[in-house]
C-alpha cells in the first residue's frame, strides 16, 4: 500500500527566513506527487506537482520542491517566507493510472514577525 509521511506536524519560522517542509512517501509502483496548501477557512489549493522530467519543480507563491527517488522524498522549500504563507500544507501522491490521492498528515506552517 502507498503512504505519505510528513515528519513535522508544526513548523514555526520567522518572517523572511527560509523554510523546508519534509515529505516522504512509500510506494512499490510509480507515483505522481503533489503539494497542496490550505489557507485558513479555505479549500485545498494546488501548490505544485511532480509528474516527470526535472526533479526540481516550481510552484505558486515562490515555493519549490525536489523529487528524490532514492530517498523517496518530496520536500517543499521556500527561501524567504511571508506572513501570508501561514497555512496548512499537505503532501500527496497518486499511483499512475489511479484516481485516489493519498495525503500526508499535514504540516502547519506558522510565520512569526
Amino acid at each position: 500500500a502507498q503512504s505519505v509521511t510528513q515528519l513535522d506536524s508544526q513548523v514555526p519560522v520567522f518572517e523572511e527566513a527560509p523554510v523546508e517542509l519534509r515529505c516522504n512517501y512509500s510506494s512499490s509502483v510509480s507515483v505522481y506527487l503533489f503539494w497542496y496548501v490550505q489557507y485558513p477557512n479555505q479549500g485545498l489549493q494546488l501548490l505544485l506537482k511532480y509528474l516527470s522530467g526535472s526533479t526540481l519543480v516550481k510552484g505558486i507563491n515562490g515555493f519549490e520542491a525536489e523529487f528524490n527517488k532514492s530517498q523517496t522524498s518530496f520536500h517543499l522549500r521556500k527561501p524567504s517566507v511571508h506572513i501570508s504563507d501561514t497555512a496548512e500544507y499537505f503532501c500527496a501522491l497518486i499511483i499512475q493510472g489511479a484516481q485516489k490521492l493519498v495525503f500526508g498528515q499535514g504540516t502547519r506552517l506558522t510565520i512569526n514577525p
Partner: protein
Amino acid sequence: EPEVTQTPSHQVTQMGQEVILRCVPISNHLYFYWYRQILGQKVEFLVSFYNNEISEKSEIFDDQFSVERPDGSNFTLKIRSTKLEDSAMYFCASSSYPGTTGELFFGEGSRLTVL
C-alpha cells in the same frame, strides 16, 4: 476564477439522521470526488465519480454513503444514518482530467458534527 462551492459550510445533526452535503463542481469538469478529514487526522479519499457512476471508492465508503449528480450541476454526498464517527470535514473536488495527471480543485469543505 471558477471554483468548487460546497453547502452547508457547517451542519450539526443527531446520530441516526440522514445528511446530504452538496457541491457544485467547476462547470466543464468531468471527474468528481469526495474526501474527508476527521479532526487531527489525514485527508482521506472516499469516492470518485465519472460519467454518472462511481469509478473508485474506498473501504470507508460503505452502504451508508451514496453519491449522485441529480441535475447535471450539483454533486451530492448522502449519509443515510449518521454515526458519531462520521463527524469530519468533507471536501468535494473536481477535475477536468483523470486524477493521474490533472489538478484537483477542492471546495472549502463542509464540517459535519454528529451528536
